Structures are given as C-alpha cells and as structure tokens.
C-alpha cells in the first residue's frame, strides 16, 4: 500500500468541506484514475465542475500515471488567474 497527499484549492476545497490537505491510502500499483474515481464517489459535488485536472508533484498528469508513495496530488478546478 502507498499513502499519497492530496491538496485542494478554490471551489474544490469548498466541495471537500474545507479540507485543504488530506491523505489517502491506495494499493501499491494504483493509477491516478483510481484516486479520481474514489474522490468522485466520496464527493459527488466534484462532478458539477466544468473541468477537473490533476497534478502529480506540481506537474499536470494523465490519469494513467501510476502513483508513488508520498506523491502530492493536486486537484485543479478550472483556473482563473490573470
């Protein structure tokens, strides 16, 4: 099993009841896809977003990436800087 850190921002943090950091334990060969599904199931509000991207260790990541112990996963709702 591995443990990953999840960080949230903006509306996603609101949807996760204000949690800006949480930890999740996953099977050793888990892909980002699995984490995504797990969160979508636990926090159905996430499905209302116009889009949701993920970053692994501060880089945008595809859902087929295999997660590693201590990875930092960011949930990125539509950005609106500028």
């Amino acid at each position, binding site marked *: 099993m591995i443990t990953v850190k999840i*960080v949230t*921002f*903006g*509306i996603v943090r*609101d949807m996760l009841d204000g949690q800006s950091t949480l930890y999740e334990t996953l099977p050793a060969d888990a892909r980002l896809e699995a984490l995504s599904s797990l969160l979508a199931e636990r926090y159905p509000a996430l499905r*209302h*977003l*116009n889009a949701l991207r993920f*970053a692994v260790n*501060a*880089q*945008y990541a595809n859902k087929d990436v295999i997660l590693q112990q201590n990875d930092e996963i*960011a949930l*990125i*709702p*539509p*950005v*609106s*800087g*500028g």
Partner: protein
Amino acid sequence: MVKRVAMIDVQLTDSILDPAVATAFVGGSQAGGTVVFVGTVRDQTKGKKVVRLEFEAYAPMAILEMEKIAKACKELFQVQKVCIHHRTGILGIGDVPVVIAVSSAHRQAAFEGCQYAIDMLKKEVPIWKKEVFEDGEVWVTALP
C-alpha cells in the same frame, strides 16, 4: 568571464505589482519594443457590482507553469526578455493582479509573445479567483 543576464523573471507575490518594475526588467539597449499587459480588477462582471477579488494559487506549481510559459514564449517568438508577475490575496477594484512584459528587437514579436503569455497563463497556471459581490461570491469559471 561570461556575463550572464537573466532573461526571464517570474514572481508570485502578495505584494502590490508595479508595471514599471516589469517594464524595466525587460527593457535595455537591445530591445526596440516592449509590450506590457496589465490586468486590472474591474468594478463589475456581467453587470453585477464586484466588491473585491480573492486570488489563491498552488504556489510551487504556479511558479513552475509561469516559468514554462516564459521559456516557451522565448522559444516560439523572437523575443528577448519575458517578465510574468502575478499577485495573490485580496484585491480591490482597480488593483493589478497580473503584469506581463515582453521585449524584442522588433515589435511584432513582442506583441505576439505578450499575448501568448497572458493567454497561456489564463489556461494553465493554477491560480483561482473568487469574485465577491454584495450578496454572494463565486469561484470564476468553475461551474456551468
């Protein structure tokens, strides 16, 4: 001895942004033209009065993404220096959340580079703004 001059300046800060700082960074004796984009907090969105904006960033990634944009800008266009400054925190009407300055020998590249940088920033950099109205608030572009 090799004199190295920084060609890229990226900053994410909660301090006031001064367009003159970005303009000065990219200027110099090789630059024929500098194009500067200054974003400003507007007093209304779709006719609704805005009280303030709150910007937050995933800081380490936002800085990486701004650096990527600045580097791509130099690769894609014939530009010399690129400066991208973004502010976070609470901003009032007329405050400046973003300044981008790009210099080049010939002006067309500076215009194209500056426009590219702000377009990409708005698409890729993990920064979010919440618009606060008199009767509520909304995370911009998050929901349909």
